[in-house]
């Protein structure tokens, strides 16, 4: 696996090195029929989340992984099973006493599963949802604080559903003790949550850790944690196991520091960095919720992600899913697969049928890429400094195919002469509302996409159309059913033409709000 390790480093470092880009992109292009779009000195297919900058063998590993590939998440689904709720550290953004929207906990919302139940659930889901390709154990708690249950689950699934990719998410404290075993189970994706490399910063995030049979607090605890996290990351890299880093952006505590974290993890071989906004509301009962620590705004988050993007691939489509989430990102089907229902389900795990389905998905996916490439040609030679954001209502498949009023989230694309680049998503309909209630749904939508110049929808009523226009957001329904990026580029080209002709004046839009809380089942 030594080669993989070297390529990981080269893939990240090579992003800014002109010498390597053409070679890398050529290989990627041959692999998936995609050319280069150029722009901002960074080669990509224009989607911008960066997976296409990866060397082919890494791309091959992650291309069908909805959590790693921003484009794949339209087409492939994942599930999490909660088997190991124990944790060995305390975070100020987590409260294990009260249930809240961003995690499911035993005894409150969903059940903790035994490894046997989890394996049955995976088979049941994979038989029902053929595009389900990834199983993660991501909490609640730390999967490596309860390694026996975690590894037993992986073992059972590897036996019964060998085509499913396995991954694990950890705070890293116990990671160095388990890297060897992770490599034995052929788990090639590990996520480590790293919020700091400076123990002084860490002391503000972690009140205590439990390590070597002792509880440590303060700077001492944070020092142990950061040392163990970085050691674990290095060990994973040495064994060719892909590592993604999650960081929670906490304004005033680690927001600027995350640039340093980004450099530290990149230099140790992490292939993707996912900076997520802090989720913090008083009713969650977390330390940060109670002290009034705010989360970042949409522009603060994007600015930090942009700042780190020159360093390595950034992940921008994370939904901060629940620990028992099932299905496509942004479409939680966990309610269909409760333990009672699973135990009754007749499971017919048909590997060939799954393969056939996934091949059809792959064709659809290539059509999306081809359509975008074709449209991108029409922007060739256009020069403008104008950048703008648009919001898109979509049900998936990379198309503009959701009614404005039915959208529970909007996908945000940044348009420039380099093309349309995915930069994030904004939730507008959360079941755990965090203080918004039922009032003023349209106002909620406008606050969430207030930094966008336009919103692309399949259909929209007259009233919201007018209100959006008043708010300076252009409601666009002419691309209903069409590919998102292709449509966005066509729209942008027309926009530039109108600006050039003096028909419209380009104005810079304001900031937008990130709605707190993770999507939970209806």
């Amino acid at each position, binding site marked *: 696996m030594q080669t993989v390790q070297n390529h990981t480093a080269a893939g990240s470092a090579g992003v800014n090195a002109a010498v390597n880009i053409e070679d890398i992109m050529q290989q990627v292009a041959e692999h998936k029929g995609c050319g280069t779009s150029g722009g901002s000195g960074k080669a990509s297919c224009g989607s911008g989340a960066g997976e296409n900058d990866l060397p082919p063998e890494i791309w091959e590993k992650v291309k069908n992984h909805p959590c790693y590939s921003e484009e794949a998440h339209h087409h492939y689904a994942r599930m999490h099973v909660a088997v190991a*709720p*124990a944790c060995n550290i305390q975070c100020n953004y987590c409260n*294990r006493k009260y249930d809240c929207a961003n995690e499911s*906990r035993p*005894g409150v919302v969903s059940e*903790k599963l035994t490894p046997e139940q989890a394996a049955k659930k995976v088979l049941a889901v994979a038989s029902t949802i053929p595009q389900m390709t990834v199983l993660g154990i991501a909490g609640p708690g730390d999967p490596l604080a*309860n390694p026996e249950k975690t590894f037993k689950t992986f073992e059972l699934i590897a036996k019964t559903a060998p085509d499913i990719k396995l991954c694990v998410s950890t705070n890293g404290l116990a990671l160095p003790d388990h890297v060897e075993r992770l490599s034995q189970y052929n788990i090639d994706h590990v996520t480590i949550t790293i919020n700091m490399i400076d123990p002084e910063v860490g002391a503000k995030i972690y009140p205590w850790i*439990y390590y070597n*049979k*002792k509880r440590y607090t303060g700077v001492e605890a944070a020092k142990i944690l950061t040392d163990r996290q970085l050691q674990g990351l290095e060990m994973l890299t040495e064994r060719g196991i892909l590592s993604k880093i999650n960081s929670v952006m906490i304004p005033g505590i680690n927001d600027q520091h995350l640039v340093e974290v980004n450099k530290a993890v990149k230099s140790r071989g992490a292939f993707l960095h996912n900076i997520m906004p802090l989720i913090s509301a008083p009713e969650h009962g977390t330390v940060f919720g109670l002290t009034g620590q705010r989360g970042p705004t949409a522009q603060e988050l994007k600015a930090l992600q942009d700042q780190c993007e020159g360093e390595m691939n950034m992940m921008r489509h994370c939904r901060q899913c629940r620990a028992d989430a099932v299905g496509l990102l942004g479409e939680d089907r966990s309610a269909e697969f409760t333990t009672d229902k699973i135990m009754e389900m007749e499971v017919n795990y048909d590997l060939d049928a799954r393969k056939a389905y996934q091949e059809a998905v792959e064709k659809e996916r290539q059509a999306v890429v081809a359509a975008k490439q074709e449209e991108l040609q029409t922007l060739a030679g256009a020069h403008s400094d104008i950048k703008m954001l648009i919001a898109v209502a979509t049900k998936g498949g990379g198309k503009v195919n959701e009614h404005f009023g039915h959208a529970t989230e909007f996908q945000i694309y940044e348009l420039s002469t380099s093309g349309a680049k995915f930069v994030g998503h904004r939730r507008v309909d959360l079941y755990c509302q965090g203080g918004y209630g039922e009032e003023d749904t349209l106002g909620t939508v406008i606050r969430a996409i207030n930094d966008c110049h336009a919103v692309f929808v399949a259909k929209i009523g007259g009233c919201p159309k007018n209100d959006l226009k008043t708010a300076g957001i252009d409601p666009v329904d002419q691309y209903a059913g069409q590919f998102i990026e292709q449509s966005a580029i066509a729209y942008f080209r027309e926009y530039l033409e109108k600006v050039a002709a003096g028909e419209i004046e380009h104005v810079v839009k304001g900031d937008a709000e990130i709605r707190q809380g993770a999507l939970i089942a209806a």
Partner: protein
Amino acid sequence: MAYMIVEENCTGCCACEPECPNQAISEASNGLFVIDPAKCTECIGHYDEPQCVAVCPIDLTCIIDDNYPRYEAA
């Protein structure tokens, strides 16, 4: 004395169970955890601090049960 788990505080996270050196902690039918006072040694002779207290994420969940005499190492 032995340690006990305050039921209304326990979240059933199972962090304590594998840490107990005496296998005194087990899962009850309600998904929460209980300590068998007959097996609890307060970790005396094993560790500097009782492991259930050190690892439990909720304060005042693993507490001394005054109904039992102080444990004395043999």
